[in-house]
């Protein structure tokens, strides 16, 4: 049985349904991420787990017990807020000791536990500082220490790194991964940043408009998106749609306007005529000036319309017959040559069957 079970949870605000019949099973010790754009319901769901909001329907079970009648202070669940929510009138020590005080921990035990928590987040010696004297990253760590000091069963994190700059965010991401491994507590993480989600999580639940689109490991979310939304939201993805011509032997052929038959790997057979989409990651496409010598599974010609130099790679946007704009990625060579093609160049693109992923509509 999963540690945290969310069963058919619904939350409405007037006419607007923020969380629409969501069911999830989160295992103990997981780093589980709720990923989605603003307004998709991920934060609302998190708050309901914390007890800061009450569902209109459905249940939330922790270790099999329904959390419904438990107010937030009685739940073994702690939250790290996006704004850190450190108590400005208490020192760092005061903040971290607060949950211990509320749990009626004997006074003699409080100081050592606080010290241990500070050590865990590598802020020993900061105990007597006030929150306003801390930097963003330090505040973040105090918030985490405060949340972990009573060893909750689940730690909820609401976009904790959103306010940090890029470099600091990367450092904190690594720290979070290590921290989670060390303490072994189940993390439920909310973010709209898909690279962050891919980097941190054991599993990701992609949410959109109150519903869960897909729950899977990061590599599967990236490589095998099951809906157009997931494919589009995670990384860059070419989406080629059309009716299925035929299928068999693990291969599906989709008729894409202008490009002709596109062959893609698919686990099961799909009836002919049904609509489908081929999801194709830009880095999987081979882009060259002339036609390839071998016989690729899929190929098409096109004209470069835009290019984006990204430092390590360059993204080429290619106009193809049928009105598609296909993105292809090519690493820039170490010898310093950064652009292989110019705008207006004619190019040949090809990719194997396994490069694409079929999404049923």
């Amino acid at each position, binding site marked *: 049985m999963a540690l945290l079970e969310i069963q058919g949870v619904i939350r409405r*605000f007037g006419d607007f349904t923020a969380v629409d019949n969501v069911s999830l099973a989160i295992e103990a010790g997981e780093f589980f991420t709720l990923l989605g754009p603003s307004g998709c319901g991920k934060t609302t769901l998190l708050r309901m787990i914390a007890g800061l909001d009450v*569902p209109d329907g459905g249940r939330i079970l922790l270790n099999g017990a329904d959390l419904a*009648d438990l*107010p937030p202070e009685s739940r073994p669940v702690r939250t790290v807020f996006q704004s850190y929510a450190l108590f400005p009138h208490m020192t760092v020590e005061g903040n971290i000791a607060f949950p211990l005080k509320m749990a009626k921990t004997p006074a003699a035990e409080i100081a050592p536990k606080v010290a241990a928590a500070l050590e865990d987040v590598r802020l020993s010696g900061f105990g007597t500082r006030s929150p306003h004297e801390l930097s963003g990253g330090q505040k973040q760590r105090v918030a985490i220490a405060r949340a972990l000091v009573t060893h909750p069963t689940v730690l909820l994190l609401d976009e904790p790194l959103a306010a940090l700059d890029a470099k600091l965010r990367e450092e904190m991401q690594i720290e979070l991964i290590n921290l989670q491994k060390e303490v072994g507590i189940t993390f439920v993480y909310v973010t709209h940043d898909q690279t962050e989600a891919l980097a941190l999580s054991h599993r990701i639940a992609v949410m959109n408009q109150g519903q869960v689109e897909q729950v899977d490991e990061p590599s599967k979310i990236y490589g095998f998106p099951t809906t157009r939304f997931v494919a589009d939201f995670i990384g860059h993805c070419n989406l080629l749609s059309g009716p299925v011509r035929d299928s068999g032997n693990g291969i599906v052929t989709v008729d894409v306007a202008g490009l002709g038959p596109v062959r893609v790997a698919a686990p099961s057979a799909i009836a002919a005529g049904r609509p489908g989409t081929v999801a194709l990651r830009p880095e999987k496409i081979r882009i060259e000036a002339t036609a390839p010598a071998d016989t690729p599974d899929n190929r098409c010609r096109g004209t470069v319309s835009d290019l984006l130099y990204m430092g390590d790679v360059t993204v080429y946007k290619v106009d193809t017959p049928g009105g598609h704009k296909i993105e292809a990625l090519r690493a820039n060579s170490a010898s310093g040559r950064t652009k292989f093609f110019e705008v207006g160049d004619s190019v040949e693109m090809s990719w194997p069957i396994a490069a694409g992923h079929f999404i049923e509509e």
Partner: protein
Amino acid sequence: MAGMRAPERLGKWLVSGPPLVYLVVFFALPTLIMVLASFRTPGEFGGLAPLVDEAGKVDLNVDSYVRFFTEPVYAEVFLKSVWYALLTTVLCLTLAYPLAMLIARSSKRYRDLLLLLVILPFWSNFLIRVYAWMIILGPQAALARGVNGVLAAVGGEPVPLLFSSFAVLVCLVYVHLPFMVLPLYANLEKHDQALLDAAQDLGANAWQRFWRITFPLSLPGVYAGAALVFIPALGIFAIPDILGGPDDSLIGNVIKQQFLETRDWPFGSVLSIVLTMAALALAALAAWVGRRSSGAASRA
């Protein structure tokens, strides 16, 4: 936290209960009792006659209301009060506006100080402020002697400054001025200087800029200030009582007289209710007008 559970609902009543109960007992209830009193008969020695007389009948009538509506003198007093309150409001507006503009336009450092200086006199005892005008307008004081000296020089009669409508009005304005300055300032502070710069750019002179941009945008503040001045001024009694002459009785004075001297409580209640209705109507009007015209400049 949305979606309340039972213990939170209990908390809500625990917190809002005591003040609610207190105000119901000591504000709502007395008001209702006053309404009831307006329908009763004055007692033999003043106050109120028993609600249920010896015959066991409930003694309720509209005699006092009839009296108010048939004896013109009371309506006159009421109208006089309205007139005084109106004058006070207009005078306060003309005096307060430049002051508020000055504070709003001054640099941030001084603004709080300037504001504090406007409000401090307000926090001194009300009677002291009235008394101060007694001194200034007194017959022996410099002002009166100066004015009357001038009058005597041109062959006129000496004019008593004290115990006159003039004194009452001056003091009314003085006492209520801060109430007009504050909302005006709050409004003017939020005006975007860029609007005036743009207008100047388009060729508007100082007066045009004021009349066509600043003043219309400040209307919500004007209405708020007007309400804060007019309503209390309507019910004032101490100022005419101390500084006014025999002709300067306002509705507040009549009410006081009915309750403490004549002791015709039902009639006093009628007068009070009329005053309350007027005050509430004006407050509602001010709120409605304020809501309508607050689309332009200030916060809703």
